């Protein structure tokens, strides 16, 4: 059975896990920057995984590419821009603010302001409302009350 395991392991080319030891840079500061950046970059063939987490071969290629750019002396922004130029903005897990994306970024704070405004208006109405709490019970409600109290 062991030969089968070997054959299968080779045949399936089981993808390795995320960041591999051989990819890592010797300079810890540079490596830390690479790790930080790769958490915000999407593995293009995966379901909602960053290249830092992904096991896919493509993610590994992107990780190596990113590190090459950093070693070449790119700043963080330049290295990310390099990838965005080649793979499109799909590669960014945090969309840029520009254009229609403004809607995405403004939606939350905007809705909060609207909701707070509505809530404030509601609270003011409730404070000034005439007290309707003391209204008389209807006959049916009286009877229901009677029934509940007796059982």
């Amino acid at each position: 059975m062991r030969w089968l395991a070997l054959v299968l392991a080779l045949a399936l080319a089981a993808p390795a896990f995320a960041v591999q030891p051989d990819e890592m840079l010797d300079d810890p500061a540079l490596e830390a920057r690479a790790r930080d950046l790769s958490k915000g970059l999407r593995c293009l063939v995966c379901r909602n995984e960053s290249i830092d987490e992904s096991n896919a071969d493509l993610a590994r290629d992107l990780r190596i590419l990113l590190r090459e750019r950093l070693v070449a002396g790119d700043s963080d922004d330049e290295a990310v821009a390099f990838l965005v130029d080649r793979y499109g903005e799909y590669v960014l897990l945090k969309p840029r603010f520009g254009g229609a994306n403004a809607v995405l970024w403004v939606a939350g704070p905007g809705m909060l302001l609207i909701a707070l405004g509505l809530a404030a208006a509601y609270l003011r109405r409730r404070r000034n409302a005439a007290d309707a709490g003391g209204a008389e019970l209807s006959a049916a409600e009286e009877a229901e009350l009677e029934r509940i109290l007796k059982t």
Partner: protein
Amino acid sequence: MYVELGHFALILALFVAVVQTVLPLYGAARGRPALMAVAEPAAIVQFVLIAVSFAVLMRAFVTSDFSLSLVVANSHTAKPLLYKISGVWGNHEGSMLLWVLCLSAFGAAAAWFGTNLPPTLRARVLAVQGSIGVAFLAFILFTSNPFARLPVPPFNGEDLNPLLQDPGLAFHPPFLYLGYVGLSMAFSFAIAALIEGRVDAAWGRWVRPWTLAAWIFLTVGIALGSWWAYYELGWGGFWFWDPVENASFMPWLIAAALLHSAIVVEKREALKSWTILLAILAFGFSMIGTFIVRSGVLTSVHAFATDPERGVFILAIMAFFTGGGLTLYAARAGALEAKGVFAPVSREGALVLNNVLLAVAAFVVFVGTLWPLVAEMAFGRKLSVGAPFFNLAFTPFFVALAIVLPFGAVIPWKRAQGARAVRPLYPVLVLAVAAGALVWAMQTGRSALGPVGVALGLWLVLGAATDLWLRTGRQGWADRLRRLARLPRADWGKAVAHAGLGITFIGIAGMMAWQQEDIRVAREGETYPFAGHEITLREVQQVEGPNYLSTLAVMEVTKNGRPVAVLTPEKRVYPVAGMPTTEAAIDNGFWRDIYLVIGDAQAGGGYAVRAYLKPFANWIWGGAIVMCLGGILSLSDRRHRVAAGARRAPPVAPGQQVPAE
């Protein structure tokens, strides 16, 4: 033959559901008690029929009946029994059957426990519940029949996706579905109330236990899913902001808001129309969740195109119920008149703020989840919205929520003198801030996440304790302790659930801020230091499981030479499904988890190994468990049991009986 019986039972259930929808609605409108009374037995019969159908499918999976195409696609004779059972809902058709099973179970429970409801309201609630059943039963029967047979059965099946062969994930869907579908009860109550044009304190009291139960199930389901992701995906993440996760998180947020606004309806007869709207939205989000998961539209727009029939069907169901519910709401909500009067600074005001924060947080998740779809269809931009966006856009709402929660929990109803009401919280506030400052001083030069999270978490936990203590009066210690034990369970539930949220806060912040990681190549017998521990890779073995092959590493963790744990991380290959999985090995601790993963053999000898130290990891799920416990305590409160107990009380004498309106 028995398979056809299951299929037949499902078709019968559809007809029963139609009867359950039509007759009681008509009867309630015309005031005919006999027609209204049909709802109850119909709900129970519908549940029994669907249960029979579900049991049949389960039998087919357990006995590996490969004449069913569903079993062939999702099972295998070598699979362990547990996963043969969980395989029933590990696929589209079976999971939809589980969905309607949960739906009819809630309907039957409402018929069973709801005998204290006014007859017309009960009839209408069950009728609306029945109509949801009609829609989803038709969906199953017309587009996703689980009982389709194969003309020529194969010898064996294609096996279940190995990632799903896991105890955490085996029970994740049933809890999630119970939660999703539990919200259908709130929806049914809301629609029935709109038809009746009457929402009062009693309505708030009836709808609350159902929402609470749904919220508890959702909490368990989400926590199980997150726990599974933590140990199964191989690097210890617990939340990915994946569309499918968000699909369960949005109903959770809305259900939490609904729980709190229903309190205002129950105690103060205000916020009525908002509560109705939340009830409609909560179930709407549940259906959106089902749509997102089942249609695959967000994973990829193309997944939707490959199977448009199902996607469009669910979209139509969703449009009908949410749209119909909102239309009815627009027409009738004006008739719901609030009674309670209160000042902005009051418990009511605090609960309104709670609702604002929870609802807007859910809205942010909603926009972020759907934005890639909108951007692609409307603007032709293919983009991603991932964890970095959500962490930034969502977190502020929960930070704000945590800051105001303990204040809101202690201030009195109606009208509060803000400063005086919150004075007892000052020592706790000082303590929490001091603890945060201490943590900040101890960790040098790291993000503010850890200290802020710890301060907020402590503030929530201690605030909840203060809240309980304040309710015990002003007598001596002994007296107050005695009163503490006698407090209503709802009070305990509230405090425990809020404390649970605080525990989860500490867990999330601690794990994200102070995690340590080590990636390296280790040879067998090699020892290396990691985060104050020493890790030794003893040996690597090839092992054979029931339906997989495994590379198993034996790794020893010691601290200053004293043994801590022997862990065996694995890398498995499932030959039938042709998929590898990583099985991380975790040493669980109160303060930290040690998390080990074994990787590939390296060309130069040795294996790639990853080690993580994850501080406070278990607090995340511990907090979720505590939250559920709080929910259960609140659910078992006397005022809910009294309502249930009234059912068993002897009927009143005929002379005193009240005629139905």
